[in-house]
């Protein structure tokens, strides 16, 4: 016996699920969704859980993360209940519920708080950054007021904290996913097989490629290189590539300044992918090309713009390194690039970025229980 919570629907609306309670359970969304399988409850049952306030069930579902938000369901919903937008909203809800601090809750529910926190962190990161670049004029000015060690330790504490939050979020999700696990559901697929399936999915985005294949879909006749799955692929692998390249750079401590150094080549290519992907994604959301792109939350915009700016500024820095142009403008660009990149990492568990972790986990358990 599960108790209905009459107020949960209103709570979900704060995460961006606007008219989902207009749903009259026709199941059109489930029928149209190419990812619907026997073992998944796309998306009608998820809406149902929200309407009845069964929040534990939502948090125990993989489905929010298996959805790639193609928007076919919203496009064809006879009640304009926006099942696609609803799925995005419960992802936001889950992100804020899995992490321990409640910070995400505040940020997702209120745009002013979101902007304030983002700026606050940016300012802090700015200070922190100067501590790493003591030769900068401003750095010397700061150190007059705050000792280097204090700032440095504070930075370590905060990064440690974000890392712990991430782990907490992951554990919390795993516990939730397995709490209400149907007893009939068998883990037929081995750990490693499931892992390889996850890797294969992340590499090819095969499930995402299944989306938008309906006859009358907007994307049906479009070339492959502008399709949403490819855009997502470019952003994802662009970011991963850059992360690897930056780490290599950090480890190798800038041994040479040539752009032909392997880690630099990797960074350049990955950066191109990421800028290409984010540019298209921003464009789609700006022009609202389909229903899926028509409602963009502050969290979505921030995430995309941060990635885009990080990519563009990255190329500027590469160019200035190559041409040895170390001036005020470059210092400023460096500041922006690093602040934004670090903020992305710092807010990982508290932002849209967390989907990278949760989707991967959800895919893993999905494949593991597929049989």
């Amino acid at each position, binding site marked *: *016996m*599960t*108790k*209905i919570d*009459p*107020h949960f*629907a*209103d709570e979900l609306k704060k995460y961006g699920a606007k*008219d989902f*309670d*207009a*749903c*009259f*359970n026709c199941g059109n969304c489930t029928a149209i969704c190419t990812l619907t399988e026997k073992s998944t409850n796309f998306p009608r*049952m998820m809406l*149902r*859980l929200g*309407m*009845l306030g*069964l929040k534990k069930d939502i948090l125990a579902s993989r489905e929010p993360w298996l959805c790639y938000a193609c928007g076919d369901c919203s496009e064809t919903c006879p*009640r304009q209940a926006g099942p696609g937008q609803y799925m995005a909203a419960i992802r936001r809800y889950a992100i804020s519920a899995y992490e321990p601090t409640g910070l995400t809750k505040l940020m997702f529910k209120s745009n002013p708080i979101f902007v304030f926190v983002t700026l606050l962190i940016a300012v802090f990161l700015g200070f922190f950054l100067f501590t790493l670049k003591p030769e900068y004029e401003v750095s010397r000015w700061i150190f007059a007021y705050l000792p280097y060690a204090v700032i440095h330790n504070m930075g370590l504490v905060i990064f440690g904290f974000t890392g712990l939050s991430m782990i907490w979020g992951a554990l919390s999700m795993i516990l939730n996913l397995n709490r209400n696990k149907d007893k009939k559901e068998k883990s037929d697929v081995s750990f490693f097989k499931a892992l390889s399936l996850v890797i294969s999915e992340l590499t090819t985005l095969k499930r995402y490629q299944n989306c938008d294949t309906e006859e009358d879909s907007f994307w049906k006749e479009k070339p492959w290189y502008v399709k949403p799955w490819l855009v997502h692929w470019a952003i994802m692998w662009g970011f991963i590539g850059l992360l690897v390249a930056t780490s290599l750079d950090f480890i190798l401590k800038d041994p040479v300044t040539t752009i032909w150094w392997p880690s630099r080549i990797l960074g350049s290519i990955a950066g191109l992918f990421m800028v290409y992907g984010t540019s298209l994604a921003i464009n789609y959301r700006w022009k609202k090309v389909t229903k899926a792109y028509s409602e963009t939350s502050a969290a979505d915009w921030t995430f995309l713009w941060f990635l885009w700016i990080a990519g563009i500024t990255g190329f500027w820095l590469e160019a200035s390194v190559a041409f040895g142009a170390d001036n005020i403008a470059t210092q400023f660009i460096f500041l922006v690039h690093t602040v934004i990149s670090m903020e992305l990492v710092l807010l990982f568990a508290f932002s849209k970025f967390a989907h990278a972790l949760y989707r991967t986990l959800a895919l893993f358990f999905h494949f593991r229980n597929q049989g």
Partner: protein
Amino acid sequence: MEEKKKKQRIGVYICHCGGNISDYVDVEQLRDIVGQEENVAVSKNVMFACADSNQKEMIKDIQEKQLDGIVVASCSPKLHLHTFRGVAERAGLNPYNYVQVNVREQCSWAHSDHPDQASYKAAGLIRAGIRRVSSSEALTNIEVKATKSVVVIGAGVAGMRAAIDLARMGNQVVLVEKEPVAGGQMAGKGPVFPTNQKGQELVDTLLGEIRKLSKITLFTSATVDKVTGSIGNFKVDVRVNGTPGEVMSFPAGAILVTTGYESYAPKEGEYGFTEGSRVITMKEFDKLVDSSNGSLSYQGKAVKTIAYIYCVGMRQTKGENKYCSRSCCTAAIHSSITVHEKFKGIKAFHLYRDIRTYGKNEILYEKSSKLGDTYLMYQEKEPPQVVQGKNIVNVKIKDSLTRKRELELDADLVVLVTGMVPRKDSQDIANKLKIPIGSDKFFNEIHPKLRPVETVINGVFLGGSCQGPKNITESVQSAMAASAKINAIIRKDTLELEPIVARIDAEACTWCGKCQEVCEYDAIFQIETNGKVVASVNDPVCKGCGICAPICPADAIDIAQYTNDEIEGMIDGFSQQVDLNVEKGKSGQEGDAGGMKDFPQIWKSIMEDLLEEPKTIPQIAASLQQPSELVTWHLMTMNKYYIVESAGIDDNDEYFLYKLKNQAK
């Protein structure tokens, strides 16, 4: 009865119906066969009998060839009986000397897979028609003087609306209301869909109109005591309670029944419904909402969560009320919207079986969803469980929309959405007016689609929800339709009724009273003629149902158009040998109408076959060279009629043996 003169010059027209008939029935052979019949002067094939050109030709034939009876073999009399009666009349022939034979629905369409048999059957039916017309009498319609006044029973919205319409069309109206105030279910009612006007406002508007019309007399606290007479001349006795014992009589050309419905009253304990609980009916809830201002509270506690349970007392698979009340879904959703608009912060849960906000009211359903109302679906077999707690009602439901999950809900108030049931006193009204009540206990119309406001009693009409669940719009529509229908009848000074009624042979009648006993319509009464007590028929009241004719021990009753002569003639005509030259192979047996003589023949063969020794079905089939299904079918019938019986199982333990009854093994 005196021996009537048979018709000498009969005209027969066999219709092709543009191929509908002629593609299967051999109309040309039939024309030739029929042409040789005794007393048939004209026998023709026509492409479309109902066409203007043919109607003119028929008139010409009747007049030139002095036809004294006509038969048209075409479609159902429901379609064209009146067309051809009209033809006869225009040609100067009595319209009742016309007989229509249905060779389309009953022959070509029904037996399109056996065209030869269809032809045999058509031949039989046409001959029956010829015999019938040859014995037919010239009849005249019964004329009745009509009183231009109407008694309307029940002053709800339907009754009031009808009274206004009838009065405006120039009729006197007596409006009889049982309750002390007019308005019926809408009296004192709050906002109702689809206009959101208050129910009482509707009543006030109609009452305002009624007051302006001097032709309407409204009696409240009044009941109908007795109804006598018939269409055109009813006499309705009305008892007015305010004046004890006073009964007033009103003449009425027609009576309109608009007695309405009752709300289903939940049984004690049904969904936790009991005195003082927080489970109330829709009607009580609407009153609560209408009388509350600012905030909604019940029994001193604020109401924030409301659970509506739908289909209470309705759509019972096993119970009495099998029907759907069709307006309650919309009414409940409308109330829910009204609640949201009037009070803030209320959450509503609708526990339904199917939502039927049909037509334009679908937008209310959508609106309520968008206002955040949650819908949960239960199955009749597993109704919600309601437990009254302290200041709260706990409702458990197996929600079909959530994979039948068992869900639990704490509500401040549970509203039982009850449907419409027939009024308890409707049997009393039915007895007084002799109108039939359906299996659902609502009054029955003649035909739900084709004659929706008339009853089988001439001159008694139905309006509103006494006939079945209706919303206000539908009630008013049906009441207005009935008013128009009534006015169309009584506006003429005299009414013409079909003369198909029972007739008493006063010489043969010895008055035993049996006919009066069986007559459902009280049309038969006792009179004294020439010093003899005999039965007599009140023609306008008689429906010609024929129940009195076979009951009469003296055979003194005949029904016009269905006299013994006519019926016997039809049987003779039908069973006559038909010599048709039809395609071989398709036909089963030749030489009779519709293969009706098959049965005795095959029975005889089976009996002969079983004379020597008991046999199994396959053995009989083999020796008769008939398919075993056919043998099984007939043998089982013979078994049922004790012609054959089982004689144990055969040596292979495979089939039963059969032997003739009373025959030694």
